[in-house]
């Protein structure tokens, strides 16, 4: 077990290394540095010698491999430098302040989509071909074919423009939360509904359920003791990575509803070639998602004794 954990951690570092090299290389193959982007945005030329000095100040004049080594050295002590777009803020500072919004959006989305997705999935499995089953299928098809940002726009048109019930953007009051959370929930609801339904159907067909029914146990007891326990444990495997994907923020929902979270900052950072921000965001994303898979696998092995992570010889 310990060996397994150690090898997974080593793998994690490997992935981080490769992702950082790839991002770094991709970033630097883009023609134009951050100051060209700045000049473009402000519609004014930056004189060559000032640009040179700026590049020198940010260490962008060194060869790329040297820049990378410096980055790794600093990143090891969680120093990602200053943002180029917001020169008075460190990258870590931006993360600290803005992540709260992404975290809130992500957690609200996770809770809401779990309730709806798992609920619809269970209802569909317990009463197949009922209203709930069709509702679940309808909702999941909707979630499958409507991109989140399209749904966000539709919500805005109906509830903000036509009905005037909800604000089009912002994050200050619970009234602002409704539409972003709904728009962000499409993909998670789809995954959770389908997975729950399939997993419940498997469990309900299992031999131990037939035995329990033959023994004359009540339907409620069969459901709560036999089916739920076995059907919902596998949900961990999708729930963990899903939650991780949600708490890192959403590019689309955050920029449509003008929520100042990490996703929003990442989109602007890409446009303005804000190297330190791009590197930090990519790595944090990869780290959180890989960690989530790792922890999920461990939890799953703990929750279900039939699962063994170590290959038996």
């Amino acid at each position, binding site marked *: 077990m310990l060996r397994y954990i150690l090898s997974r951690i080593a793998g994690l570092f490997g992935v981080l290394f490769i992702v950082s090299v790839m991002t770094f290389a*991709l970033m630097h193959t883009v023609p134009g540095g951050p100051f060209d982007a700045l000049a473009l945005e402000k519609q004014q030329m930056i004189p060559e010698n000032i640009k040179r000095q700026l590049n020198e100040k940010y260490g962008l004049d060194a060869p790329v491999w040297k820049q990378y080594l410096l980055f790794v050295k600093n990143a090891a002590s969680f120093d990602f430098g200053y943002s180029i777009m917001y020169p008075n803020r460190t990258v870590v500072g931006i993360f600290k302040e803005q992540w709260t919004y992404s975290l809130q959006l992500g957690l609200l989305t996770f809770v809401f989509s779990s309730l709806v997705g798992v609920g619809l999935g269970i209802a569909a499995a317990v009463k197949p071909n009922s209203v709930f089953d069709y509702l679940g299928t309808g909702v999941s098809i909707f979630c499958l074919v409507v991109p989140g940002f*399209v749904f966000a726009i539709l919500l805005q048109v109906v509830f903000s423009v036509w009905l005037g019930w909800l604000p089009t953007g912002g994050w200050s009051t619970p009234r602002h939360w409704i539409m972003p959370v709904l728009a962000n929930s499409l993909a998670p609801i789809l995954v959770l509904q389908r997975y729950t339904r399939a997993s419940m159907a498997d469990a309900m067909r299992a031999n131990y359920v037939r035995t329990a029914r033959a023994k004359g146990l009540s339907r409620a007891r069969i459901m709560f003791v036999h089916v739920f326990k076995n059907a919902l444990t596998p949900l961990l495997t999708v729930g963990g990575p899903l939650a991780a994907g949600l708490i890192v923020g959403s*590019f689309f929902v955050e920029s449509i509803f003008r929520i100042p979270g990490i996703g929003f900052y990442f989109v602007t950072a890409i446009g303005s070639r804000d190297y330190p921000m791009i590197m930090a965001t990519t790595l944090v994303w990869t780290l959180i998602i890989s960690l989530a898979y790792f922890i999920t696998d461990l939890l799953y092995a703990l929750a279900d004794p039939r699962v063994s992570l170590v290959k038996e010889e």
Partner: protein
Amino acid sequence: MVTEATIENIPASPKMQKFMRFWRRFARNRLAVVALVFIVFEIILAVFAPYLAPYNPYKGDFLATWETPNRLHWLGTDDLGRDVFSRLLYGARISISVGVLSQISIALIGIPIGAIAGLKGGWLDYIVMRLIDILSSLPTILFYILLMVALGAGFRNLLIAMTLTGWIGIARLVRGQVLSLKKTDYVRASRAMGAGTWYIFRKHILRNVMTPIIVSIALGIPGAMFAEAGLSFLGVGIPAPQASWGQMIGMYQGYIRTAWHLTLFPAVILALTMLAWFLFADGIRDALDVSSNSSNAD
């Protein structure tokens, strides 16, 4: 002469029969047929867009900016006075060609890589699998965005970025199928009789992997449309003067209070198109796969 003609006809006719059987099963699924009609209709509209569009999608009319839907401009005009309906027609060209072309290039690259990895095994397989592991550890959308920023926005670069990320799925699928088919008795028997690797691949393996490949491609088309719309929405997909649905939504979402028609119509048409392609792909899967019929029933 006559006998020759009949002999020639024999191999063709079971193929035809197979197709008819497939078509009958497909046609039973009403939703899928409706979706197919919608798709064909949209493709016709897209192909003939230059003749059908009432206005030039790139030329603005500065006397008619920000118009809401009316008799002259059915779906209104944008900030430059460009006709939204005409732009939507041209957007269909982008959306459909990105969906179809990306899947073709993904298949052309992914299938050989997966097949070679599965057939040859050994170090080649090891390298391919590690490459797939690394590429799939990156969050897809993040990878797309970084690639598009590095390559620059544009139709061709979009296809390149989609192929670079998309071949993984189909390669993994083909490799897995090849590995399991390699162990079947008929492949072993064929090998024992002295058949070469290439012959076995063509004769026994390719035929059996075709079904999952077709399903994966059919499902990949709306997936690619989804990605194109998302990237164009963020401003790194199809660049400005060209019309893409996602890009139209992205450009005008800030004006939703004053000009809702600029975002609503592309949003609706995008959602309908995605729905049609998914239903169509679903119909193909059900019609091709006998076993999925029974497993879908429960």
